[in-house]
């Protein structure tokens, strides 16, 4: 069988992977470079690809700064505590301060967002989540990307980034293949935005038969984001936290749904309830406490006051009470039950 080599040259911005991140990158890139040649290479069909292919019923991160609900620094604190301090605070802050305008943009594009009939605010499921009718989340952002890109190559799996011949340590394009035809695709580009996916199915589950390997996350995430970048010489950071979202029987939520709805807890290999053990230490912010206190208006955001209080406060006690299993002391080693 004769495979073709197809070269796409003179690209200014190549977007590898058109999930929610890649589509957004193409859209934003078009504004800043209106006369640039923007090309998208996507492994599946851009209309339904990536982790939001099937839609999503919530936007998991919305500050609500305009209603005084949260500020970006509140989100940095939350993420730092959630991930045991192993976070890039600067990146978190930057993402958090831009996320609201992104969500407002989605609403402008027609994404149905549920609203509280009394206040007119977006309806919340948790402190950070808002509820949406998100069946067409991906087709909507795909439309934005298709209107922004000069060309969209569907069914191209990018396998390697190309390095610049003359300038060291600079990426000059990418190569990949069409998963249907096997044709070899070469993209020569001044800039490459890697929006590829993470890795699913790294760990073998205990379940067998058809239930084996059922992760909440998309099975087509083939670790391109890591493979492409590592091969190009990128330094990998932020890899200490891995999220392994097993699904539980008869449900379609990740195990995080257990925490949310069934008030369960997690423990480490030593049987410690590590979240409550380390919570007080993590509450101490990296920046000066006084500076944060002045920016957090407790009257507008009552939970901020509760969270900032020492761990013996009522909110902490309530949390602990809800989590402790009957007949066990908090922090008491429990037999490892698996997860």
């Amino acid at each position: 069988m004769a495979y073709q080599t197809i070269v796409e040259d003179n690209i200014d911005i190549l977007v590898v992977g058109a999930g929610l991140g890649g589509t957004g990158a193409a859209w934003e890139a078009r504004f800043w470079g209106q006369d640039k040649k923007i090309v998208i290479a996507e492994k599946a069909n851009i209309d339904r690809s990536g982790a939001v292919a099937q839609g999503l019923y919530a936007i998991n991160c919305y500050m609500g700064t305009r209603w005084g609900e949260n500020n970006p620094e509140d989100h940095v604190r939350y993420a730092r505590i959630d991930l045991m301090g192993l976070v890039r605070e600067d990146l978190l802050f930057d993402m958090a301060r831009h996320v609201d305008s992104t969500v407002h943009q989605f609403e402008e594009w027609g994404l149905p967002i549920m609203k509280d009939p009394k206040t007119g605010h977006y309806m919340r499921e948790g402190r950070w989540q808002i509820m949406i009718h998100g069946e067409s989340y991906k087709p909507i952002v795909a439309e934005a990307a298709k209107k922004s890109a000069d060309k969209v190559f569907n069914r191209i799996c990018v396998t390697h980034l190309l390095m610049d011949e003359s300038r060291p340590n600079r990426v000059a394009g990418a190569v990949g293949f069409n998963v249907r035809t096997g044709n070899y695709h070469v993209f020569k580009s001044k800039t490459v935005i890697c929006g590829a996916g993470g890795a699913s199915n790294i760990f073998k589950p205990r379940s067998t038969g058809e239930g084996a390997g059922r992760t909440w996350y998309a099975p087509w995430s083939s670790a391109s984001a890591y493979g492409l970048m590592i091969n190009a010489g990128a330094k990998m950071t932020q890899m200490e936290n891995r999220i392994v979202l097993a699904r539980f029987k008869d449900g379609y939520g990740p195990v995080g749904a257990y925490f949310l709805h069934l008030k369960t807890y997690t423990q480490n290999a030593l049987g410690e309830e590590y979240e409550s053990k380390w919570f007080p230490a993590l509450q101490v912010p990296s920046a000066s406490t006084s500076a944060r206190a002045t920016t957090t208006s407790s009257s507008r955001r009552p939970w901020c006051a509760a969270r900032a209080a020492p761990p013996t406060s009522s909110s902490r006690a309530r949390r602990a009470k809800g989590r402790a299993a009957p007949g066990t002391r908090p922090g008491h080693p429990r037999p490892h039950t698996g997860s």
Partner: protein
Amino acid sequence: MPTFVYMTRCDGCGHCVDICPSDIMHIDPTYRRAYNIEPNMCWECYSCVKACPQHAIDVRGYADFAPLGHSVRVDRDERKGTIAWRIKFRDGTEKNFLSPITTKPWGTAIPKLAEVPAPSEEIRNSQLLYNEPKWIRMDEGGLRTLKDAGLTLKQGVYY
């Protein structure tokens, strides 16, 4: 819960092949009907089920532990901007759901950014993204900065 195809309803049009993110909906070369070539790699994302004009694709439970005999039917209509679900349980219970998929006429609400006014030099040198600070929708103030939050955050990887 992988997909399967009712072969009497499928006419081999290939919409499911076109849309499947996992690339596992293929056309059988002999029967000219679609089938799921690798149920283990099916995410049950319903992309093919929604795309099928003949409603020939359904999703089943895992053969080894989920009871069979239910059905989940879906009708997605971009023109009406709705998605309708009909869920039939094994005992005959039926549930119907109707949800919006968009609040605007489909395909009209998103502008072409190549045609909007170009960003000024001032905006280019700012920290703002497209349509910010307008779309942050703050009545007072614009984009939050570390300075006006009175914060210093740790930069980069510090641990």
